[in-house]
């Protein structure tokens, strides 16, 4: 049964606080911090993009997994900020981790859930014996239109997961997965547009909550598990508030979601978000613990997973840096002007 052989993440060093963005638009930082449940967000350096973030996460995943990069038979990179419109990020990753050339690769796009869609594809490919290992990555340097509410949350980061079949090598087994998909116009970006557009309040009820709760309920029904069977739960986190509300609706406690809730300290990393949350949870989890993960991508859809942690997690854990250490080490705070310069909002 397919499982997680290893994982790695990357979050840029730069941070901008809610206060600093609110200062520019003359908004009340306290009500935004409370309303969105977020303190600050990560910002990519001028020389980082979705590809460089994917590569850093992928290199850490290879080290954590302890596999030969040439044994990776498929690489999928999910992002809505691929640096090229045509020229796959996955090819850059495969070269940068020295995976060789005998592999299949492609870029995926499904707003914030392309990384978990890649995970499902790799489960099928590894269970069928088509590949030994596969890598799925969610990586983004997302942008919010200046002055838009999304500007407080749209951030940068990524996570890479290596999937394979051998239970003895898996830090966690993926027990089951289901998806729920519909044509819902909550958030979009047209080809060539610099910033995404969204349906305002419409993004909540019919989009995020409908898909996340339906997919999660479908998974619980299919597996026979109850919310209390899971030690941890990770829900997609476009802000700090939605996942808390979704957990409540579904009967999960705050304690179950706390460790996987990173948006309050790094912002919404889009394709990276639910996978970064899962990585943070796996950093802490013990053998036997069950983890529920439900992603969400606008447009819209959710993938839900039931995962069980295996013994080898303790041994592999010593090989790599913890997600929280990567987030907290070397934070560099910047002001709005430097933020604009990093995002090419002002040019020389």
């Amino acid at each position: 049964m397919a499982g997680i052989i290893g994982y790695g993440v990357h979050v840029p060093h730069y941070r901008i606080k809610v206060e600093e963005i609110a200062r520019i638009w003359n908004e009340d930082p306290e009500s935004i911090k409370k309303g969105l449940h977020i303190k600050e967000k990560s910002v990519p350096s001028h020389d980082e993009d979705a590809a460089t973030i994917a590569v850093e996460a992928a290199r850490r995943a290879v080290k954590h997994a302890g596999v030969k990069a040439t044994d990776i038979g498929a690489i999928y990179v999910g992002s809505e900020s691929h640096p090229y419109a045509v020229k796959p990020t996955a090819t850059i990753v495969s070269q940068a981790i020295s995976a060789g050339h005998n592999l299949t690769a492609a870029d995926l796009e499904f707003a914030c859930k392309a990384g978990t869609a890649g995970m499902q594809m790799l489960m099928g490919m590894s269970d069928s014996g088509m590949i030994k290992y596969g890598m799925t990555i969610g990586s983004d340097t997302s942008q919010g239109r200046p002055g838009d509410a999304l500007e407080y949350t749209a951030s940068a980061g990524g996570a890479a997961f290596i999937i394979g079949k051998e239970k003895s090598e898996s830090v966690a087994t993926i027990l089951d997965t289901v998806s729920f998909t519909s044509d819902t116009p909550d958030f979009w970006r047209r080809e060539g547009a610099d910033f995404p557009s969204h349906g305002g309040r419409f993004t909540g009820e019919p989009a995020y909550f409908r898909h996340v709760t339906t997919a999660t309920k479908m998974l619980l029904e299919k597996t026979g598990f109850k919310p209390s069977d899971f030690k941890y739960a990770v829900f997609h986190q476009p802000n700090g508030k939605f996942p808390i509300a979704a957990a409540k609706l579904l009967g999960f406690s705050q304690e179950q979601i706390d460790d996987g809730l990173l948006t309050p300290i790094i912002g919404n990393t889009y394709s990276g978000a639910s996978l970064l949350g899962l990585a943070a949870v796996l950093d802490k989890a013990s053998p036997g613990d069950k983890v529920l993960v439900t992603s969400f991508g606008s447009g819209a859809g959710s993938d839900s997973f039931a995962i069980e942690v295996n013994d080898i997690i303790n041994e592999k854990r010593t090989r790599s840096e913890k997600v929280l250490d990567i987030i907290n080490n070397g934070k560099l705070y910047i002001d709005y002007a430097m933020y604009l310069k990093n995002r090419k909002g002002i040019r020389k």
Partner: protein
Amino acid sequence: MERSSASMWRKLNSRYNLVGTECENCKSLYFPSRIVCKNCGRQTKMRNKTFAGTGEIYSFTKIHVPAEAFREDAPYTVAVIKLDEGPMVEGHIVESGKEVKIGTRVRQVFRKMLVEEDEGLIHYHFKFEPV
């Protein structure tokens, strides 16, 4: 305009993964790659060698007046890194909140080096991050 595809493609291994060469005859290490060993001449037996990407700052300078291609990056720091395996490598230093001085430990990171104008290619390259 002629694109730089061919030269970029040839250099990917060295730019992405610090792949240089090792002379199997005398064990000398080279980055960038050499075809002929400085010690061995015709006895050279070169093979590829991937460097770990860890080392320390041997010397550095801050560039305030950059080449045109890096005009928006200035000021930035360029250093000579002494790799743990021995060879000296020139590289850009990225900010990590750690002090940049002679002897500072660094690790390689993967970054954009250059973005060609007129919808050209994006050039990715190793840089070094103080740890």
